[in-house]
């Protein structure tokens, strides 16, 4: 069928005929094919995405432009966005990931902002497989290649290894830029008669039909039909970046749009549609890399490092001069028209002519069928009583700490230049990365988070937890969460079970965003992440941006001084569902993920921020995968110190309700163990749940003993449970006693080097 070749359905084809009042020619049909593809039109997700809160006092630009923008005061705007490059990376990990970085960078600087940070959120299958090692090495190498060369630091990210991603890795890249003065630039082709210029790399036959490629499942024959792989040229992009920012200063730019999926077709029609104008271009004026390219190939090429620019008539030479200075080609390829048509010419011959709005705005939208998946009945039925507790807790913690999801990511981030531009004041390895903003007291904290396993086990809670954890990570540095971007990585939306996961996850994220006051300013949806019918874990990834009003107040996760008191904010419940412990020690992926009470989450974050701002806190670290014991271990490792912790059975060592300064003088074992205010004691919690459970809304702090009374007071006022766990020790030993019994005594100087180089060893580098 004609329509199926370009990925449309029969009804969609009929709709095109109705719009045109005739049958489309082959090129026109191809234009609709790409523009109405899932990747460009969001036809299956658009309705659900409307549930996100998108406004807030800081929001300058919400979803719909190349990137979102928030105002952080002092005349500064922060521009940020996240995007996936999953399918290209599965085929060619190095170039796939590299061009993913290139794409997200262009999204930021086409808004007129200077990119200052990248983060990468990655998911792979088991590292036991040679293919996964090849994918990981390639993806990390590609990100390093591109980001390092262009000189934007990669300051953080995350990586998980789960079988569910075996054949379909996820490569999501987040970029943040800063706009110091002037206005943001929008992707608009304004002003009838104004010229439109194509700038940057020459057009070749790269990635033709990449957009429709991203809109289907990978299968055996995707290898066959795969488009010519795009190769990134970060040097070219660096020139584009500098030239763009220089040109911006002249005020000549009316509109700017980067060329991504569906290349010139998408960029040109979207620019025209946003300005409600028409646009006409001549493919013969497009500088080419190869001979004999057809209009179809020129219009659909996805050659990288290109941008489309609209300037005022008569100013094109001035713009071209700046590009020339940077060694770049900028060709006038068409102009803005007033007739509302998207017209493609080959010389004098019109080869396609369709209404702009029909391409960019009138793609059909669908509300797909939605049904709760059957597997949930099984996974929910986790019976903890059937799980034996570890006989050796020391051994269990060691195993957990050395599991692939918890070992140091140093092998990855050392390949990234995370310091260039000299703004990175909190480097990779912490809960969030922090960048200073030179010339101000401010800082920006950024974190990406998304636990696919939680979402798989309960998409509503999992989605909300991704937002909550990202916010908590940012709060642990002393920053106030401001807004998020996201990447929604799911399977085939035509499957009701997948669509259900998608809807629920978005609902959960939306609820959390509302509760925490962090609107969504943009994002990206990646469907069809499946191989041979097997879907990945539904994986929404959140990119959180937080603002530190005073960078000198920044706090890091490592313990600082022997003798400091260690306290835990938040409640620990008997929750082992979806935990790393369950997976690593018991080989189970089951149970409901930890509950999330957004009110409590909010209170805890507010308290942590308040305490940091009051200068009380020496270290802050959120408790996430691996639970309390792992969080303690991580704060020890980060601070090159040890800890002596003594837990009473119900963790009630020092409820906020009692909170008087006198308590800290007493050994914890002897202190009274009152119930929490709410009266929900934890007396019967299993020991493994206590140490390794992943109850949400918990933060581990350390502080000078004399500051504890003030913290307790704040906690009581804020209604936040707080527990004294023990103290920081000079000796690099993590000791955890439970009701007088020694459960854990881990020699950190022995563990640390193993933990640090585990990934390198797995990859054959050591």
């Amino acid at each position, binding site marked *: 069928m004609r329509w199926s070749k370009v990925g449309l359905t029969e009804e969609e084809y009929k709709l095109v005929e109705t719009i045109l009042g005739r049958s489309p020619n082959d090129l026109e049909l191809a234009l609709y094919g790409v523009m109405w593809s899932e990747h460009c039109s969001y036809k299956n997700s658009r309705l659900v995405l409307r549930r996100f809160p998108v406004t807030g006092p800081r929001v300058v630009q919400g979803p719909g432009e190349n990137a979102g923008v928030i105002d952080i005061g002092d005349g500064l705007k922060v521009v940020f966005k996240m995007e996936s490059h999953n399918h290209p990376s599965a085929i060619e990990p190095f170039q796939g990931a590299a061009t993913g970085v290139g794409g997200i960078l262009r999204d930021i600087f086409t808004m007129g902002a200077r990119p200052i940070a990248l983060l990468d959120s990655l998911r792979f299958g088991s590292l036991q497989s040679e293919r996964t090692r090849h994918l990981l090495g390639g993806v990390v*190498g590609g990100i*390093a*290649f591109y980001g*390092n*060369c*262009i*000189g934007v630091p990669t300051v953080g990210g995350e990586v998980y290894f789960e079988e569910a991603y075996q054949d379909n890795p996820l490569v999501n890249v987040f970029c943040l830029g800063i706009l110091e003065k002037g206005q943001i630039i929008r992707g608009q082709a304004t002003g009838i008669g104004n010229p439109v210029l194509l700038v940057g790399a020459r057009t070749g036959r790269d990635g033709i039909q990449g957009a429709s490629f991203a809109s289907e499942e990978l299968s055996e024959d995707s290898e066959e039909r795969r488009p010519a792989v795009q190769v990134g*040229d*970060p*040097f*070219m992009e*660096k*020139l584009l970046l500098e030239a763009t920012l220089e040109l911006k200063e002249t005020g000549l730019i009316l509109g700017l749009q980067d060329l991504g999926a569906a290349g010139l077709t998408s960029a040109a029609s979207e620019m025209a549609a946003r300005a409600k104008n028409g646009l006409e271009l001549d493919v013969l004026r497009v500088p080419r890399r190869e001979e004999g390219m057809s209009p179809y190939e020129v219009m659909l090429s996805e050659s990288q490092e290109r941008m489309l620019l609209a300037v005022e008539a008569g100013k094109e030479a001035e713009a071209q001069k700046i590009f020339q200075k*940077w*060694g770049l080609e900028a060709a006038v390829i068409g102009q803005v028209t007033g007739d509302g048509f998207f017209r493609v010419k080959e010389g004098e011959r019109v080869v396609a002519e369709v209404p702009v709005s029909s391409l960019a705005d009138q793609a059909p939208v669908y509300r797909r069928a939605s049904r709760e998946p059957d597997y949930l009945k099984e996974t929910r039925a986790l019976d903890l009583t059937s799980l034996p507790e570890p006989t050796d807790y020391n051994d269990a913690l060691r195993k957990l700490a050395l599991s692939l999801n918890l070992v140091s990511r140093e092998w990855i*981030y*050392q*390949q*990234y*230049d*995370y*310091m*260039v*531009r*000299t703004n*990175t*004041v909190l480097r990779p390895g912490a809960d969030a990365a922090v960048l*200073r903003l*030179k010339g101000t007291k401010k800082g920006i904290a950024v974190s990406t988070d998304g636990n696919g396993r939680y979402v798989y086990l309960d998409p509503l809670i999992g989605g909300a937890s991704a937002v909550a954890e990202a916010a908590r990570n940012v709060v642990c540095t002393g920053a106030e969460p401001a807004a998020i971007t996201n990447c929604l990585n799911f399977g085939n939306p035509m499957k009701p079970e997948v669509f259900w996961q998608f809807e629920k996850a978005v609902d959960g994220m939306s609820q959390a965003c509302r509760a925490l006051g962090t609107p969504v300013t943009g994002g990206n949806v990646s469907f069809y992440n499946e191989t041979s019918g097997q879907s990945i874990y539904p994986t929404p990834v959140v990119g959180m941006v937080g603002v530190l009003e005073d*960078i000198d107040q920044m706090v890091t996760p490592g313990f600082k001084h022997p003798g400091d008191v260690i306290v835990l904010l938040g409640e620990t419940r008997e929750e082992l569902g979806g935990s790393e412990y369950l997976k690593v020690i018991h080989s189970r992926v089951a149970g409901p993920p930890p509950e999330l009470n957004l009110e409590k989450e909010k209170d805890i974050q507010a308290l942590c921020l308040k305490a940091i701002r009051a200068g009380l806190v020496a270290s802050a670290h959120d408790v996430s995968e691996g639970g309390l014991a792992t969080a303690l271990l991580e704060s020890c490792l980060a601070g090159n110190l040890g800890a002596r912790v003594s837990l009473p059975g119900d963790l009630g060592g020092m409820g906020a309700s009692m909170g008087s300064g006198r308590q800290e003088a007493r050994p914890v074992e002897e202190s009274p163990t009152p119930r929490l205010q709410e009266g929900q004691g934890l007396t019967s919690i299993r020991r493994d749940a206590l140490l390794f459970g992943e109850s949400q809304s918990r933060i581990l702090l350390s502080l000078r003993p004399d500051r504890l009374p003030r913290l307790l007071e704040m906690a009581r006022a804020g209604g936040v449970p707080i527990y004294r766990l023990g103290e920081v020790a000079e000796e690099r030993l993590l000791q955890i006693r439970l009701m007088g019994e020694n459960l854990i005594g881990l020699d950190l100087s022995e563990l640390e080097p193993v933990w640090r180089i585990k990934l390198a060893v797995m990859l054959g*580098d050591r």
Partner: protein
Amino acid sequence: MKFGVVVFPGSNCDADCHYVVGDVLGQPVEYIWHESQDLAGVDSLILPGGFSYGDYLRTGAIARFSPVMRAVETFARRGGLVLGICNGFQILLEAGLLPGAMRRNESLHFQCQDTHIRVESVATPFSSRTRVGQVLKIPIAHSDGNYYADEGTLRELEEGGQILFRYCDSQGRVTAAANPNGSVDSIAGITNRQGNVLGMMPHPERAAEAQLGSEDGRLIFESILAYLAGKSV
């Protein structure tokens, strides 16, 4: 005492060097475009890190033919101070202003990490503010920092006191484990025979403020300042 920071297409530490000189040290500084041949009024030049011309073919290979490099050569021959950092060092090697060449890191990976380097000589304009044997904590970020020179050249470097920095551990011990990239003799930085041209792989501009984790790199810039001040009186 004016500094010039050369900007090649693809330089990406130019702004960082400019910031340290101009904002941290409060000295006059200007950018010098790679097509310029005019270094009038400049007392000290910095060739910053980055990926000039994408580092395609070999690091620094294409940049060294930039018009500005002719001016840099003349400037150096007349005794002007030239500091090449990372890619700047690679360019100086390619241009023949310093002896030797760079190979890929032994790990074959880009490596971004803190390193310690030991000061081997204080008798240069770049190190007068340090002590022999002093250990400086300064980060590296490169994939081609594996310095090579043949034995004859090494001997000359050694005898001429041209080896300024060696990678070491935090205690100042020069060991294989403390050598991050495989450089011969753990070399992290060398000068020319006259001592007025320094190339180093670690980035002193990334270690010039306490907020960034180390201020040791500042000593290099302050040494330059002291030298220039001494010269101008």
